C-alpha cells in the first residue's frame, strides 16, 4: 500500500507547485501588460504637485479632472494645449473609419474573386498582391509624399484615407482570402446548380457566413489606422488633418506642458483602441491568426 501510494504524493505536490508557478506567471503577465497604461491613467487624475511627489502615489487620491478639461481646451491650464486634441480625435476617427470602410469593401470583393473564381492571370495577380505584404514603410514613404504633393492631396482627409487603404489592403485581403478558403465550397456549388449567379451567391450566401471574418479584418484595419504616425506626420503640415498620434507627439515635444496633461491626452488617444480590445478581442485574435499562420 505504502509503496504504491508513494509516487502519487510528489506528483500532487508537483501539480500544486505548477499551479502556483502559473499563477505567479499570470501575475507577471498582467503587471507587464497593464501597468504602463494604469500609470498613465493614475497620473492623468492627479494634480501636478501630486504627480511629482516622492515616492509617487500608486492610487489617485482625489480624482482631479482638470487635466482632461485642459486637453479639450477648457479650464485655466488649457492655454498650454490650445485645445488641439479635440480636433485630432475627430481627425483620427474620420481617417481610421474611412480607411477601414474602403479597405474592407475592396478587400472582401477582391479576396472572394481570388479564392473562388477562375480567371486568367489569377495566380500571377494574386502573387503580386500578397507580395506587397512584405513591403516595409520605407519602400513607399517618400514617393507617396511626392505623389500626394503633386495631386494636391497633402493635408486632406482623402489623401490620408487613400494612403492608409493602400497600406492595409494586402493584409485585409489575405485575412479574408483565408476566411473564404476555410469555407466548404459545397454550399456555393449547390447554389450554383440551383441557378444562382455568382454575385447572388456572394451576396446572399457567402457574405453572411464570413461576417465574423469581416469583423476581424475591419477591427485590425481600424486599429492600424488609429496607430499610424509617420505617414500623417509627413502628409500633414497643419492641424486640420493631424490625427491624435501626431498631436500627442507635438504636445509631448513642447517640454512645457505638464506631464499630468500629457498623460490625460495619452489616455484620450488610448481610450478607443482599449475599448475595442476589451469588448471585441475575440475578433482580434482570430484576425491575427488568420492573417499570419494558416
Amino acid at each position, binding site marked *: 500500500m505504502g509503496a504504491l501510494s508513494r509516487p502519487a504524493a510528489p506528483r500532487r505536490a*508537483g501539480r500544486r507547485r*505548477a499551479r502556483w508557478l*502559473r499563477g505567479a506567471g*499570470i501575475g507577471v*503577465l498582467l503587471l*507587464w501588460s497593464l501597468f*504602463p*497604461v494604469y*500609470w498613465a491613467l493614475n497620473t492623468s487624475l492627479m494634480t501636478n504637485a501630486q504627480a511629482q511627489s*516622492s*515616492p*509617487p502615489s500608486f492610487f489617485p487620491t482625489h480624482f482631479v479632472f482638470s487635466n482632461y478639461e485642459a486637453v479639450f481646451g477648457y479650464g485655466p491650464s488649457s492655454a498650454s494645449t490650445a485645445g488641439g486634441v479635440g480636433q485630432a480625435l475627430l481627425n483620427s476617427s474620420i481617417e481610421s473609419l474611412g480607411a477601414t470602410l474602403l479597405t474592407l469593401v*475592396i*478587400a472582401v*470583393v477582391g479576396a472572394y474573386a*481570388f479564392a*473562388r*473564381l*477562375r*480567371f486568367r492571370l*489569377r*495566380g500571377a495577380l494574386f502573387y*503580386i498582391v*500578397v507580395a506587397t505584404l*512584405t513591403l*516595409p*514603410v*520605407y*519602400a*513607399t*514613404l*517618400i*514617393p507617396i*509624399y511626392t505623389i500626394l504633393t503633386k495631386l494636391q492631396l497633402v493635408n486632406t482627409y482623402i489623401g490620408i484615407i487613400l494612403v492608409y*487603404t493602400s497600406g492595409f*489592403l494586402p493584409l485585409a*485581403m489575405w485575412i479574408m482570402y483565408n476566411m473564404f*478558403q476555410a469555407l466548404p465550397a459545397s454550399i456555393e456549388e449547390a447554389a450554383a446548380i440551383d441557378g444562382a*449567379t*455568382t454575385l447572388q*451567391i456572394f451576396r446572399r450566401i457567402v457574405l453572411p457566413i464570413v461576417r465574423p471574418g469581416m469583423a476581424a479584418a475591419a477591427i485590425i484595419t481600424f486599429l492600424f489606422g*488609429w*496607430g499610424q*504616425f*509617420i505617414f500623417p506626420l509627413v502628409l500633414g503640415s497643419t492641424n486640420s488633418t493631424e490625427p491624435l498620434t*501626431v498631436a500627442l*507627439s507635438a504636445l*509631448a515635444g513642447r517640454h512645457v506642458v505638464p*506631464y499630468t496633461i*500629457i498623460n490625460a491626452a*495619452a489616455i484620450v*488617444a488610448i481610450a478607443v*483602441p482599449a475599448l475595442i*480590445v476589451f469588448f471585441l*478581442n475575440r475578433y482580434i485574435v482570430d484576425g*491575427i*491568426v488568420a492573417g*499570419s*499562420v*494558416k
Partner: protein
Amino acid sequence: MSAIRRRLTRGPAIQSQTIRRGAGETALPYAMVTPLLVFIGVLALYPTVLTAYGAFVHNDALDPPNHFTGFGNFQSVFNDPQVRQSLLNTGLYVIFGVLLSVALGTFFGLLLQRRFRGRGVVLALMVLPWALPGVVEGVIWSWIYDPTFGVLNSTLKTVGAIHNYQLWLGTHQIETIFFISLVQVWQITPLAAILILASLQAIPGELYEAADVDGANGWQSIKRITLPLIRPGLAIAVVEGLVMSINIFDQVYVLNAGASTGSSLMSETYQITFGNLNFGQGYALSLLATVTTIVLSLLAVKLIYRKVEF
C-alpha cells in the same frame, strides 16, 4: 511568408474549389479585383519602383538639379557617421526586439496553453499593448523613465537596486537603445504570444499524456515536445519582430528626441529626407532597408520554419 508560398504552390487544391460560373460572367472576376489592383499598383508598387529608381539619382533640394549618380547616394550615406551610427543602432534594436519579444511571447504562450478559469480575460488584457499606437506608448513610457519623477527610478531606489536616480535615455548608447526597444517589445510581444499560442494549441494533448506516463517532468516535455512543434509559430513571430524592429520609428521619435544616441535607420531616413531635404540619400537608405527587410525575413523563415506533421 512561408505560409504564403505554401498557399501559392497549392494551386490545384484551390482550382478544385472554384465554383462554376454562368455565361456572360467572364468579366466579373476582373471587375472584382480591379479596385484592389489599382490601389496596390498606384500606391504600393509604383512608389516602390520610384524608390528603387530614386536611390540612383542625385536629388537634393539644396543642390539642384537632379541627375543620375550611380551609387553616389550610397557612397555619401555610408560616409556619413550619423548614418553609420543609426545602422549599428538598428542592429541592436533588431537583436533586443526579436530576442525579447519572442522569449516573452513564448513564456506568455506557455502560460496560456492550458485552459483555466479567466483565461479569456487574461488573453484580452495581454493583447492591449499591441492595439495601442506606438507613439502613445512612447509618451507613456517617457513618463515612467523620467529622470526626476519617473516611477522606474523611484521603484528601483526603494528596493535598493540603484543608489541615485538614473538618466535611462540619451547618455549611454546601448542603455538608451535597450530602454527604447523595451517599449516596442511591450507593443509586439502580444503578437508573438498569439502566434506561438496558435501553434501550441495545435499540439495534440496525447503527446503530453504519453510523456507524463513515461515519467517526463514539465521542463522535459516543454523541451522535447513543445519547442520543436511550435517552430512554425516561432518563425512567424521572429519575422514579425524583425520587420517591426528594422522599421522602429515611433518610439524613437518620441523617446530619443532627435539625438543620435538612439537614432534608428528609419529616424535617420526621416531626418535626411524631410529635415535635410536630400531625397536621393533618403531613397538610397529606403531601398537598402527594404531589401534588408525582405532578405532577412526570407532567411529567418528558411532557418526556423519546418513543416510539422502530427
